[in-house]
């Protein structure tokens, strides 16, 4: 190399310079490209960051809205649940209240039904209950071909009793008599009723004339033992006349049995009172 001519050396230097220049140009180009790429990347990053930030803000806003809606929904569910519970309790309250009121009305109805069929003075069945019982027992006895008996009882000289002792004592006397009648009945189906005034009726299902007479005799005996004073009577104590009738019903008119017992009562009265007249 040291042996080369200066001309050649210059050529080499020029060539080297040219190569260096080319390299510098290439490096400048690459640097420029890198600058552009870097700028592009930075700008792109900024855009992405801005976009992400916007998206983030939007998401946060949506999250806040959703949380608010969720709270509202939770409140709504709580309110609805409370109202639902309230409605259930109100419904149960109204239902149970209605049941209670129904029972109250039923009680009053039963009481009224009972009162409507009871004689208020004596506590015996009244005329309405008597009529219903006669009708039903007549029909039953007719169906089953069984005997039905009836006693019609009337206190002897009761007007005189009231005149002598006063109506208050008269009422007490009727109550005592009612107690005697009630005590004499032993079967559930038997019925003692106040027909009116001092007249009483006893209905005896499935009883023939003999059985009815025994009951009538027992009543008179019980009354004699009670010895209720009656100074305005020839017997000096309260007595009773009784008409006793019995039959196996074959007609449709239940009144026939009462008519017969009443006729016999009239007969007992005619015969001097304090006695029993039988079919």
């Amino acid at each position, binding site marked *: 190399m040291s042996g080369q001519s200066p001309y050649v050396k210059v050529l080499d230097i020029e060539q080297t310079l040219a190569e260096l220049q080319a390299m510098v140009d290439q490096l400048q180009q690459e640097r420029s490209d890198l600058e552009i790429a870097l700028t592009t990347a930075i700008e792109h990053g900024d855009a992405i960051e801005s976009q992400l930030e916007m998206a983030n803000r939007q998401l946060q806003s949506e999250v806040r809205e959703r949380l608010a809606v969720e709270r509202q929904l939770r409140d709504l569910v709580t309110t609805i649940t409370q109202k639902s519970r*309230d409605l259930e*309790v*109100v419904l*149960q*309250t*109204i239902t*149970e*209240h*209605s049941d*209670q*009121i129904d*029972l*109250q009305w039923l009680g009053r109805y039963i009481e009224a039904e009972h009162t409507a069929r009871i004689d208020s003075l004596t506590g015996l069945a009244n005329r309405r209950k008597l009529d219903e019982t006669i009708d039903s027992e007549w029909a039953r006895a007719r169906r089953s071909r069984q005997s039905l008996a009836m006693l019609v009882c009337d206190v002897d000289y009761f007007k005189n009793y009231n005149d002598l002792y006063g109506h208050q004592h008269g009422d007490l006397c009727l109550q005592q008599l009612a107690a005697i009648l009630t005590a004499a009945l032993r079967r559930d189906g038997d019925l003692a009723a106040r027909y009116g005034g001092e007249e009483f009726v006893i209905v005896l299902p499935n009883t023939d004339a003999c059985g009815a007479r025994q009951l009538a005799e027992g009543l008179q005996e019980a009354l004699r033992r009670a010895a209720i004073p009656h100074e305005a009577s020839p017997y000096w104590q309260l007595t009773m006349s009784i008409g006793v009738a019995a039959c196996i019903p074959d007609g449709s008119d239940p009144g026939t049995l009462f008519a017969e017992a009443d006729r016999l009562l009239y007969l007992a009265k005619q015969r001097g009172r304090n006695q029993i007249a039988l079919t």
Partner: protein
Amino acid sequence: MNALAGDGYQAEFDSAAGCVRLCGSLRLGGLTEYAPISQLLEDALDGRSALTVDLSTLEFLNSSGIATLSKFVISARNRKDCALTIRGSSTIPWQGKSLNNLKRLMPSLELVFD
């Protein structure tokens, strides 16, 4: 004193005593007919820290009446600022069960039976 009266019943609000009294037999037809009584009860609650509703002489209350009373108890409960007492009678059959059910609507409700 604010008062209402109708066939067989009386409703009165004694502001000084802080007491609404319902007496007699309430048999009004439906919630519409109960509106005046409902209003009387609501008015009694306004601005009051304690109120007594006296039912001890209310012999009869129909289903619409108990519904009105239930709504009133819910209203009192939701206000949260009024101590409510209901006075009843142990001799009136419907009151035992129905008034105890009202306590389920408002656990702080005080029930007093004469």
